């Protein structure tokens, strides 16, 4: 039986990958993901896990090696962060186009420059279009569970796609906290041996990765769209199977005290936990406020989200990345796209906060909530605002 114990989340993630009995790991260490890779290297070196650990020379090589491993029919795991994910960029598209099942954990960290090793979502949000499945964990337990879930989802023959498990750098990755680590036998019951749908085999030769001429590229992209969107059903089914077995339930869109909420906060990642504590305090004061967030970022669970926010008068969307000179943050942009033209759509008040490791504290939530209430009271909807910035965002440009 799984035992509840205190441990560093990065170590727990490495142990979870080990419990999944992965065959191949190709990864390059980068802060704040380093402890995951270090611990996996140790587990393999100690003989606790019979796997091939490939110490590559870069993240570009790491993901390329992972594609080779998955193509050979190996259960494949990797981990990265920030600049490392950016260096993988061009290879990410290839892994998904080749339909390679693999799991990559990403300790979310800001992209340079200026050089910054701390947490925000600029690494993940610039990789939205690569055709991978993407899920967010908010704490250590979720990160462990989602690593196990991710292997099962990725290898499902109805899915066959690589998947990223996002968890916030440092504030989750380096946290010592209580969690329950499923043991190998339990995981084995949930996650049987990997059966590749196709693989490189000299007795049954195939060619992977041919050129896609203009006559076929559009069809290939339609396959990507159908595959990523079509993974929704198997994902929900796998979440349910996991919940039945382990008692921890996951949904594509998660809500917290959202019943009868007039204003809902929209958050991603671990700030959702701080937001819950803030919501509790507001509810105690009689404020009708709740919380909603995307567990599943790709495929975007559009209908679940619409249902979750139905009845809300306003959404306070907190992005942790934005496109300079653009309309706002990526999460709010996608929400607007989803809700545009919907009858009784809530007002959307957009904020960008928590960049490059800056904490989002209670008074920040207060400020964003206050501005959202002002909109409901008749104030014009402001353009997206970078709060927490000294000097102020609007009126200064």
């Amino acid at each position, binding site marked *: 039986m799984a035992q509840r114990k205190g441990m560093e989340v990065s170590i727990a993630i490495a142990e979870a990958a080990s419990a999944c009995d992965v065959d191949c790991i190709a990864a390059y260490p980068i802060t704040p993901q380093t402890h995951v890779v270090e611990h996996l290297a140790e587990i393999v070196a100690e003989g606790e896990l019979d796997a091939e650990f490939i110490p590559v020379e870069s993240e570009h090589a790491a993901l390329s090696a992972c594609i080779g491993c998955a193509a050979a029919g190996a259960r494949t795991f990797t981990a990265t962060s920030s600049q490392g994910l950016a260096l993988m960029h061009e290879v990410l598209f290839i892994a998904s186009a*080749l339909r390679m099942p693999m799991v990559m954990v990403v300790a979310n960290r800001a992209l340079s420059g200026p050089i910054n090793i701390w947490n925000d979502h600029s690494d993940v949000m610039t990789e939205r279009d690569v055709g991978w499945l993407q899920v967010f964990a908010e704490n250590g337990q979720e990160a462990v569970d989602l690593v196990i879930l991710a292997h099962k989802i990725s290898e499902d023959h109805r899915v*066959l796609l690589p998947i990223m498990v996002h968890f916030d750098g440092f504030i989750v990755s380096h946290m010592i906290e209580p969690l329950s680590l499923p043991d190998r036998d339990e995981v084995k019951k949930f996650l049987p041996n990997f059966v590749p749908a196709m693989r490189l085999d000299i007795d049954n030769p195939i060619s992977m*990765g041919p050129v896609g001429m203009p006559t076929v590229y559009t069809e290939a992209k339609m396959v990507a769209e159908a595959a990523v969107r079509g993974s929704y059903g198997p994902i929900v089914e796998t979440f349910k199977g996991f919940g039945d077995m382990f008692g921890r339930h996951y949904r594509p869109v998660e809500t917290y005290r959202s019943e009868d909420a007039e204003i809902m906060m929209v958050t991603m990642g671990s700030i959702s936990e701080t937001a819950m504590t803030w919501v509790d305090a507001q509810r105690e004061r009689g404020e009708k406020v709740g919380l909603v967030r995307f567990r599943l970022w790709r495929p975007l669970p559009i209908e679940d989200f619409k249902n979750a926010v139905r009845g809300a008068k306003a959404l306070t969307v907190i992005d942790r990345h934005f496109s300079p000179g653009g309309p706002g943050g990526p999460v709010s942009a996608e929400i607007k796209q989803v809700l545009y033209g919907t009858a009784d759509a809530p007002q959307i008040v957009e904020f960008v906060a928590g960049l490059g490791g800056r904490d989002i504290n209670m008074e920040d939530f207060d400020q964003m909530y206050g501005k959202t209430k002002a909109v409901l009271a008749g104030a014009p909807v402001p353009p997206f605002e970078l709060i927490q910035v000294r000097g102020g965002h609007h009126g200064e440009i």
Partner: protein
Amino acid sequence: MSRQSPTPKWRELAIGMAITEPGSSRYNRTGDWRSNRPVWKFEACVRCGMCSIFCPEGCIGMQKDGLPLANMEYCKGCGICEAECWTGCIAMEEEKE
């Protein structure tokens, strides 16, 4: 296995667009591209096989009698065989209309 349509519907594409039929590149008759063709003067040929080894297309085979034979359906007329032949028995000649 039958040859896949060059304009398949998206549902007809193999997983990851993998090519599952070994040797299917033979369907591409790349000899159509040729503007020059190699011509052998077999009386000077010493049957060394260098032309066969160096042919980037792999279209020159060695026959039972030891003489080379090019499959002109795939020869692109690159001239590498001519350059590598040390006896000078291969000459590139222009394709006629």
